[in-house]
């Protein structure tokens, strides 16, 4: 038998037997080592659900230092666990008492007098009173530039503590969304005055149902139930928030019992994982009511979409039902209007533009866009019917939606040219109006409709650019300015009806779907959705028996 292996082929033979023995030893050693490694590893890991009374959740990063008056890296859902507002935003835009039990607004709409709740203390035992509220307002007002985006902060003239339980807020102008903006998670919530410094809070001490009791950078944060909480006590004693940036890793963590709850938008869980969990019954799944709108703005300032008939034809030509079912996994309800009906002042009963390619074709015919015999593209005065459809090139979701819309338009003889560019190029197009159709989401509760409508007056917004060709654009802007300062509810309702009806009838938007939040849970009861996407109702959740 010729010796092979390492010896030169022409070398000596005769040692095959010994080598065979050694080879077996080698192999045994290797297999043994691998088996031992796996065995010890397996023994070390027991799949453990959370200990009793603990809810394990996950987030993309640590929750931050939890300063109620600061932004990133403070995570809103966690700020909302520790700090509370004067008033709360409820579904449909209703405002309910919270740390303020009652309030009166002066007839001129400039003075708000709040009565504060009795018996509330911060988690360090200090009382929650008008002085504490004023100290927090002062901290916010000392940093006006940071909160410049919020009109309320610019509107505040003074804050006075009238006595221990009474607080007076004086505004420069009547500003109706005052209560809505006081309900936001930040910046107007309250930390104990003892922890307030000009550089932010020294530690997170609020009045809320939870206290931040532990943080390990890059790994987890721990919240413990506040024993002195004034309101109904949460059923869970502790909430552990693990740091998991990757949605796929989060889905695996849920599947293997490392976490009990996934809650949020597509950043938290992919539509794909969600539908898989739902189909297999891996956990309880739920989808929220609409939280914002996924829409396209249609440019009324450029040909051919400066023609109302063309804009209406686009709305009739797009098959939203198919888009929702096929591309959005049925998780986002179809949108027929800019704002969903569950938003304040938005339930107007506007007639949707139904999917009707024949009607779209008829509208285009009537507008003079004629399909030449044997041709596939409509023409008017020698000009082809062509529009630029702009999207962020590396956003896979926008690309598939754009392709579907392109196919729908093509079916009625309309050529949509896809313009996929990088993000800042698309932003530049939004600002200066170089688009036919362009993607954009509304801002969601509680900013819709008032903040979003307010931004339509700003020339560097895609909404302004889309509307700039409308003959009544000046009146729309004047109505928007009026609605934000009117103090009369009936007038406000009428003005919103006017604005939203005009925008709908002028077809300057192609609303596609309403964005939603998703929840997947196991062993948890009472998983519901808050009025905004950023507040997670942990208080209502309880362990399944």
């Amino acid at each position, binding site marked *: 038998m010729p010796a*092979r*292996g*390492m*010896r*030169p082929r022409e*070398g000596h033979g005769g*040692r095959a037997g*010994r*080598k065979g023995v050694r*080879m077996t030893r*080698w*192999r045994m*050693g*290797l297999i043994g080592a691998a088996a031992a*490694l*796996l065995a*010890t*590893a*397996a023994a*070390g*890991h027991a*799949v453990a659900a959370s200990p009793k009374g603990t809810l394990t959740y996950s987030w*993309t*990063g*640590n929750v*931050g230092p939890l300063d109620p008056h600061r*932004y*990133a*890296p403070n995570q*809103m859902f966690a700020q909302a666990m520790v700090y509370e507002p004067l008033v709360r935003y409820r579904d449909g835009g209703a405002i309910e008492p919270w740390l303020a039990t009652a309030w009166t607004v002066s007839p001129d709409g400039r003075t708000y007098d709040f009565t504060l709740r009795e018996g509330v203390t911060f988690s360090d035992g200090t009382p929650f009173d008008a002085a504490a509220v004023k100290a927090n307002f002062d901290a916010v007002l000392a940093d006006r*530039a*940071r909160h*410049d*985006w919020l009109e309320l902060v610019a509107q505040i003239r003074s804050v006075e503590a009238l006595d221990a339980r009474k607080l007076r807020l004086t505004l420069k102008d009547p500003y109706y969304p005052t209560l809505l903006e006081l309900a936001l998670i930040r910046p107007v919530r309250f930390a104990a005055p003892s922890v307030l410094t000009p550089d932010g809070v020294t530690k997170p001490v609020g009045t809320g149902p939870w206290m931040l009791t532990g943080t390990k*950078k*890059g*790994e987890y944060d721990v919240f413990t139930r506040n024993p002195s909480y004034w309101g109904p006590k949460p059923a869970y004693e502790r909430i552990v928030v*693990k*740091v*998991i*940036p*990757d949605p*796929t*890793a989060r889905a*695996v*963590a849920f*599947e*293997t019992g*490392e976490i009990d709850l996934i809650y949020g938008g597509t950043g938290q869980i992919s539509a794909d994982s969600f539908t898989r969990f739902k189909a297999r019954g891996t956990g309880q799944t739920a989808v929220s009511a609409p939280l914002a709108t996924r829409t396209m703005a249609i440019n009324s300032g450029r040909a051919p979409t400066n023609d109302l008939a063309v804009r209406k034809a686009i709305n009739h030509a797009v098959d939203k039902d198919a888009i929702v079912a096929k591309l959005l996994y049925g998780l986002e309800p179809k949108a027929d209007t800019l704002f969903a009906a569950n938003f304040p002042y938005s339930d107007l009963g506007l007639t949707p533009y139904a999917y009707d390619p024949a009607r779209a074709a008829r509208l285009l015919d009537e507008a003079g866009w004629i399909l030449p015999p044997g041709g596939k593209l409509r023409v008017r005065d020698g000009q082809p019917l062509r529009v630029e459809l702009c999207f962020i090139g590396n956003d896979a979701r926008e690309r598939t939606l754009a392709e579907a819309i392109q196919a729908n338009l093509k079916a009625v003889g309309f050529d949509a040219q896809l313009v996929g560019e*990088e*993000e*800042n*190029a698309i932003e530049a197009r939004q600002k200066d109006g170089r688009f036919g159709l362009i993607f954009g989401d509304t*801002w969601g509760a509680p*900013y819709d409709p008032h903040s*979003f409508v307010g*931004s339509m007056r*700003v020339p*560097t917004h895609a909404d302004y650019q889309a509307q700039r060709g409308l003959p009544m654009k000046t009146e729309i802007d004047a109505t928007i300015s009026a609605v934000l300062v009117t103090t009369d509810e009936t007038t406000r309702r009428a003005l919103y009806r006017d604005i939203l009806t005009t925008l709908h009838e002028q077809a300057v938007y192609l609303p596609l779907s309403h964005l939603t939040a998703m929840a997947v849970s196991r062993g948890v009861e009472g998983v519901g959705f808050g009025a905004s996407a*950023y507040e997670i109702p942990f208080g209502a959740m309880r362990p399944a028996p």
Partner: protein
Amino acid sequence: MLRFIAGRLLTLPPLLLAVSAGVFLLLRLGRGDPALDYLRLSNIPPTDAAIAEAQRLLGLDRPLAEQYLSWLWQALHLDFGLSYVTRQPVLDDLLHYLPATLQLGAAALAVTLAVSLPLGVWAARHRDRMPDHLVRALAFVGVSIPNFWLGFLLVLLFAVTLNWLPPLGRGGWSHMVMPVAAVSLMSLCINARLLRASMLETAGQRHVLYARLRGLPERRVVHGHILRNALLPIVTATGMHIGELLGGTLVIENIFGWPGVGRYAVSAIHNRDYPVLQCFTLLMTVIFVLCNLAVDVLYAWLDPRIRLAREAAR
């Protein structure tokens, strides 16, 4: 030798300067505006005033040259600025996460060497027979599978289906098995094949024939005369594998929720966290240069020919 090491270390500052300028420019040539990411993370509607304020807060409103020089000046004092996202000093953050990455990288390197050397020897000693074919097949598969895909497959099998291993996080030994396997497989396969080729080449050389003629036992021939010489290319390759392993941890840390610099850097890429990316790149440059230096030193120590040639040249 000391002079050699000192000389190599002296090339580090100009290299870091060039890297810092390159990274600084490349980041700013890239798409997007960190101010918009900051606003997105802060859930602030991106009004023009808000964008201007965010740019001021992040220091992006100043001219590019001024931004770079002021960053460089602070970096010389080991102050790499605040992360746009965590608002913590970048160096503190990175040094906090570095040990976890080094642990993963070191374990992967140990596994690579511990498994690839026996495999290479085994394959070489049984050239063109079953063990050799097995190692060849393993190498073929191992080099072809992207590490993140292997990571997902391991998770699917050992965490989701069998429930033997924890799917993510850092903790005991069990947490390391899958990430280390996923990171090290490719390097391990390359090393094994390389060692096999190198051993076969050495085995045909005259000193091996002479050793056999002297009647030395086979074990001494293999270990003393073949393996020792055949290891030199492996040392070079290992130097390169360290880079590969650390690069691999970037992706793997995300899949396995491993709290290391890789995961931190990938989040920073998503959020255009410039200060983090600048500091991370410099940190990685230093690590690479030091690893390569260590390899060169080791090489000289292992091979008297190189050591003596260098001393003679002096």
